[in-house]
């Protein structure tokens, strides 16, 4: 097989197959480290704060939030859109990069997909709690009821129900199907009897038979083909929540592509934030190399630039439309009482990712980590700006008002962080964080030992 001499190896160190197994399973064995305990304690505290806020909301109602008659959507919807967006990176990496045959995805797809599932769970929490009565959450599904009434299939909010739940279900299946062979490896390497039994149960009796593998490859490819349009549809439908309304600043056709690229942008930033820490903490630096970080940074430049162009296009079209309400909505965003939020968004999303044009910056772990956090902040403010600034100047100037979150809303947001990190920390202890079989399958063509063999 031809191996390009310029291309850097994907996996560092001269690894054998059994070394790969050993390295990737290492973080699951033994007692968790001190940092793991610290992390889970902090996450647990955040989760408790969230539990208190949930209790307040359920017991006293939505009145505990800072929402008012004019601004009916605040942090709740901002956080929902933000978390859903973060989820997009995992599917993008595992599905779209699989279809494009990008081998570097093999080191990061497992953890990115796990992040996706957790992020969707965090996102789904907000619309449910926004109803005020969690127990009546099932009203959103079309089921035969005594009122003989069905749900409104013309509403984008209902499309959301189908999009998000399908997205979660298909992502879960895709992730678990990929995990089954690796769980077989965990089972066969397990020392204790109980551990072996548990992983034996979870591994679905995987043996590595060639027949199974061949069909496994087929379903992975088809699932990727299904998940790719699915991931694009999800944020498109989320953007419809805004775009199909008649609120100036929301009613724009640019929303679907702009939301999708923004979602991939923020998702990659979150994957970077997590993996830069995880690769160090789990000793997986030879698997998740600077190359991987650089490749992800390139996706960030691309999607960040699309987002930047979308901001400018929105402004231009507002002026070009000649509609004074549309023009006011945008001028108010940039110069009104929420201008600070708008400029945080512009700086974090339009300026900072452009720094990645410099190779020094996009190959620096520290710089990447800092910029990835900036992007996360910027993307949160994007949603905040869209939701709140468009609403707070109502059609009647007598209704004009300001919105400030209450402590309960802050608690709900912090609580989802707690949930996110708790589940992610449990994930790295329970499942292999890197797709073992997939890494082995690219080891021959892209490992360091092969590269040397070809040169000598």
């Amino acid at each position, binding site marked *: 097989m031809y191996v390009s001499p310029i291309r850097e190896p994907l996996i560092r160190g001269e690894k054998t197959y059994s070394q790969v197994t050993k390295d990737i399973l290492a973080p699951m064995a033994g007692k968790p480290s001190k940092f793991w305990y610290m992390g889970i304690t902090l996450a647990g505290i955040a989760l408790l704060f969230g539990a208190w806020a949930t209790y307040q909301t359920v017991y006293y109602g939505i009145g505990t939030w800072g929402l008012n008659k004019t601004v009916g959507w605040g942090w709740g919807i901002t956080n929902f859109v933000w978390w859903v967006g973060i989820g997009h990176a995992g599917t993008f990496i595992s599905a779209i990069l699989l279809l494009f045959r990008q081998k570097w995805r093999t080191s990061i797809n497992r953890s990115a997909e796990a992040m996706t599932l957790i992020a969707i769970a965090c996102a789904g929490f907000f619309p449910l709690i926004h109803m005020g009565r969690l127990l009546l959450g099932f009203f959103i599904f079309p089921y035969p009821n005594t009122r003989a009434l069905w749900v409104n*299939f013309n509403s984008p909010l209902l499309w959301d129900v189908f999009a998000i739940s399908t997205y979660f*279900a298909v992502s879960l299946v895709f992730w678990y199907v990929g995990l089954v062979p690796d769980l077989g490896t965990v089972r066969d390497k397990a020392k204790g009897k109980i551990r072996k039994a548990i992983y034996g149960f979870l591994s679905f*009796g995987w*043996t590595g038979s060639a027949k199974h593998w*061949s069909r496994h490859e*087929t379903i992975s490819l*088809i699932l990727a083909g299904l998940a790719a349009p699915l991931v694009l*549809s999800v944020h498109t439908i989320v953007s419809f929540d805004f775009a199909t309304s008649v609120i100036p600043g929301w009613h724009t056709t640019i929303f679907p592509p702009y939301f999708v690229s923004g979602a991939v942008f923020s998702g990659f930033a979150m994957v970077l934030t997590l993996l830069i820490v995880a690769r160090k903490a789990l000793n997986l630096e030879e698997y998740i190399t600077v190359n991987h970080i650089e490749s992800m940074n390139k996706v960030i430049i691309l999607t960040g630039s699309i987002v930047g162009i979308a901001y400018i296009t929105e402004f231009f079209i507002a002026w070009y439309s000649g509609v004074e309400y549309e023009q006011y909505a945008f001028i108010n965003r940039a110069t009104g009482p929420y201008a600070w939020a708008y400029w945080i968004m512009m700086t974090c999303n339009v300026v900072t990712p452009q720094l990645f044009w410099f190779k020094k910056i996009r190959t620096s772990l520290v710089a990447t980590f800092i910029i990835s956090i900036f992007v996360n902040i910027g993307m949160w403010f994007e949603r905040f700006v869209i939701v709140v600034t468009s609403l707070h100047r109502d059609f009647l100037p007598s209704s004009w008002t300001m919105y400030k979150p209450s402590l309960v809303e802050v608690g709900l947001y912090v609580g989802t962080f707690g949930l996110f990190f708790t589940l992610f920390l449990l994930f790295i202890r329970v499942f292999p964080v890197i797709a073992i079989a997939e890494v082995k399958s690219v080891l021959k063509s892209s490992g360091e030992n092969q590269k040397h063999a070809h040169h000598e």
Partner: protein
Amino acid sequence: MNKYITAYYTDENDLIKGVKQIREKGHNILDVFTPFPVHGLDVALGMRRSRLTRVAFGGGAVGAIVGFGFQAWVFTKAYPLNFGGKPYLSVPSFIPVTFELAVLLAAFSMVIAFFIHFKLGPGAKTVVYDERCTDDRFLVLIDAENAEADEVKKIEKALSDAGAEGITYKE
């Protein structure tokens, strides 16, 4: 199956060469166990093209038809509601749910078909011939149920000629 012969390789390219050689000699390979999908092995073993794609298509088609049909039934027959004078059968707004259900059923039908067909699932009982098959060994399994002693010798010879290691005959 009570009698069988196993042998292993440590490199996937040797495995494919070996499998071809063994099959050319007319020995029937029951199965091969590998730690990761080896490309070209399905061809070397003479496997058919997967029919799972058809299952996925069928599932997707059912999802799309049921999804669209249900929405159309709700809005024209079960509980017609007038939304701002718009048509009852508002096709464009039925598309998102139709699409999502198509994807959902396509994915689930295919994956479920895969697990049922191979009898895999939570707690499924399967035979693990060598625990290193999920680590770094590529194991070839040959049926010796009705093989006479000299037939077994022949298979073992073919395996060692094809470069396989650790040839074992189990009864």
